[in-house]
């Protein structure tokens, strides 16, 4: 097992789950700050508030399953097992980056844990995931494919075509819509005439569930059901995880368009807090442990930033590598 796979396996431990949720949250907060301070070039899209979906995904998917994510992929990548240093290395264009530093924040990938190259094109990952599921169906493997995408992506043609194709071919794929209420600066209700995006599965005769996206266990249960259905040959499922994006769409966005109080309502059901309280209630950990975990993670991320900033930038040769196969 490589490091990513070890991190993935470790998630079985509830303490590790909380650790990883903090890891995502703190990583994203710091990335945003670094961009804000002009220490990183380009753009980035963070996922604070959506950690429960990432963790549930990593818990239920196998490393051999194929996961298609988007430009908002840091959380999924970290949860699936990628190290903060490979993700941060990529975001900062270092040789230590997941794809050698030429991809950047929107382009992460780690084949050892099934993370396919994340796409910066809205909806593209949906038919691509269907295709990954096709491979399993054709070769008789029991790997599944999972596509993660946002609420806004359900208005693009690739969503329609991808779900229809997966349904008619009964492909082993799970479509996970992270409905975080906004597509860029537009509230979902301004662009989409239905309240529940899960309802759109009916157009494909596809089972669907509306899921509380703030609770790891709830999301994991839904994913387990969907993955079982897929592996059992019963075809695709659409899951709509209701969640929220604490931060703006991208580094450039202060999210001033949000109705007053909306953020607070969601913060009151913060996925990390909910998971932490659950673990404490269950007696899995004590409050003190939880605090300790949080500070431990904070230190880890700071160390990661220091090391990354000290790592050499991707060289010119990297720009000419992996364009096509070299004879």
């Amino acid at each position: 097992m490589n490091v990513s796979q070890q991190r993935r396996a470790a998630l079985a431990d509830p303490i590790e789950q909380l650790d990883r949720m903090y890891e995502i949250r703190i990583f994203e907060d710091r990335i945003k700050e670094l961009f804000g301070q002009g220490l990183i070039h380009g753009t980035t899209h963070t996922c604070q508030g959506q950690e429960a979906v990432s963790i549930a995904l990593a818990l239920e998917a196998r490393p051999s399953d194929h996961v298609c994510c988007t430009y908002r992929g840091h959380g999924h990548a970290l949860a699936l097992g990628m190290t903060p240093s490979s993700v941060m290395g990529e975001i900062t264009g270092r040789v230590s980056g997941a794809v050698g530093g030429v991809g950047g924040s929107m382009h992460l990938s780690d084949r050892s844990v099934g993370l396919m190259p994340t796409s910066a094109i809205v909806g593209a990952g949906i038919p691509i995931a269907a295709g990954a599921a096709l491979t399993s169906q054709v070769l008789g493997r029991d790997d599944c494919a999972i596509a993660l995408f946002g609420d806004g992506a359900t208005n693009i043609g690739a969503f329609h075509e991808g779900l229809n194709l997966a349904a008619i071919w009964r492909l082993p794929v799970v479509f996970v819509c992270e409905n975080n209420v906004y597509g860029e600066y537009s509230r979902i209700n301004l662009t989409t005439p239905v309240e529940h995006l899960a309802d759109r599965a009916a157009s494909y005769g596809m089972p669907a569930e509306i899921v509380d996206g703030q609770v790891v266990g709830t999301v994991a249960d839904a994913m387990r059901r969907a993955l079982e259905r897929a592996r059992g040959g019963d075809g695709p499922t659409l899951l709509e995880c209701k969640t929220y994006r604490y931060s703006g769409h991208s580094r450039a966005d202060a999210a001033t368009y949000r109705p007053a109080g909306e953020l607070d309502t969601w913060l009151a059901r913060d996925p990390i807090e909910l998971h932490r309280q659950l673990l404490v209630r269950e007696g899995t950990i004590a409050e003190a442990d939880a605090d300790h975990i949080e500070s431990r993670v904070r230190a880890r991320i700071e160390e990661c930033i220091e090391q990354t900033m000290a790592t050499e930038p991707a060289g010119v040769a990297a720009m000419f590598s992996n364009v096509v196969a070299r004879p």
Partner: protein
Amino acid sequence: MKLRMRQAIARALADEMRSDPTVVVMGEDIAVAEGPFKTSEGLLDEFGPLRVRDTPISEMGFCGAAVGAAATGLRPVVEIMFVEFLGVALDMVVTEAAKLRYLSGGSYTAPLVVRASVGAGLGFGSQHSQTLETWMYACPGLKVVVPSGAGTAYGLLRAAIRDEDPVVVLEPRVLYAEREEVVVGDAGILPLGVAGLVTRGDDVTIVALGQTVEIARVAAAGAEWSADIIDLRTLVPWDRERVCESVERTGRLVLVEESPYSGGWGTEIAAHVAGECFHSLRAPVIRFTCPDVPVPYPAHLERRYLPDATDVRAGITELISTGRRPRPWWETEGYAS
């Protein structure tokens, strides 16, 4: 007045919307948010939600809507946030809009404008940094313009909106924040198909487009040779008269392009000149382009990826002194591409 390019674009849209009630603008987050690049500042306030529209994430849908609206009496201006997104809507531009007049015997037309931001330099990565002009090439019925700053952005956009046929405006993203003096009002309208002469010289004709005009200017400033620097402005149909007239005078053609060497936009100009002005050419046509690789993300690699003024100046000096085509940097430095 001095305006940033994004302000000049917003001003051009506003001026056309004031003078023509059929002009409408639509795109993702262009109304309430005033555009991801703030190119529609003030439009919603002044013209209201009927004419200034936020769309769902549906490029095929709203480009198609623009075609239908243009055919029936509106002059829609759609914004494609990054030109790559035309990859999910190209059909509407190339196969529908560009052929609507032809396939209706002239009884329907498609006076619409598709604005799309293009180019590298801001760290958006391989899928958000291309120029992709050639997607719109070889498409009779379609026009393509590329501003090189606030002034041309204003003048060309206004002309594009007034044009009776579909026009694609490719806006270099790195220039949105750049400020320059702009002639606003009807006097500032620039005719489509007419190139601009940036500097006048005798030894070489440099044809540049959009973001590369500045590169050419810097390369020529204080060089031991003097150049006609032509800002092409309109890529389709490009100003053949102006370019050929210049090459016949200088005997040398150099293109500075933000596109890969293979299949970049300059091939069209080089090919035409090699046929039309062959007997005036004293030296090989050279194209300073990007290497044949996807656009890399990090700032230092993006800089290396883009054509460089120093390379251009040195290359032209070599061309004039030796008569030989200088090798591109990636060849001399031994990077296969």
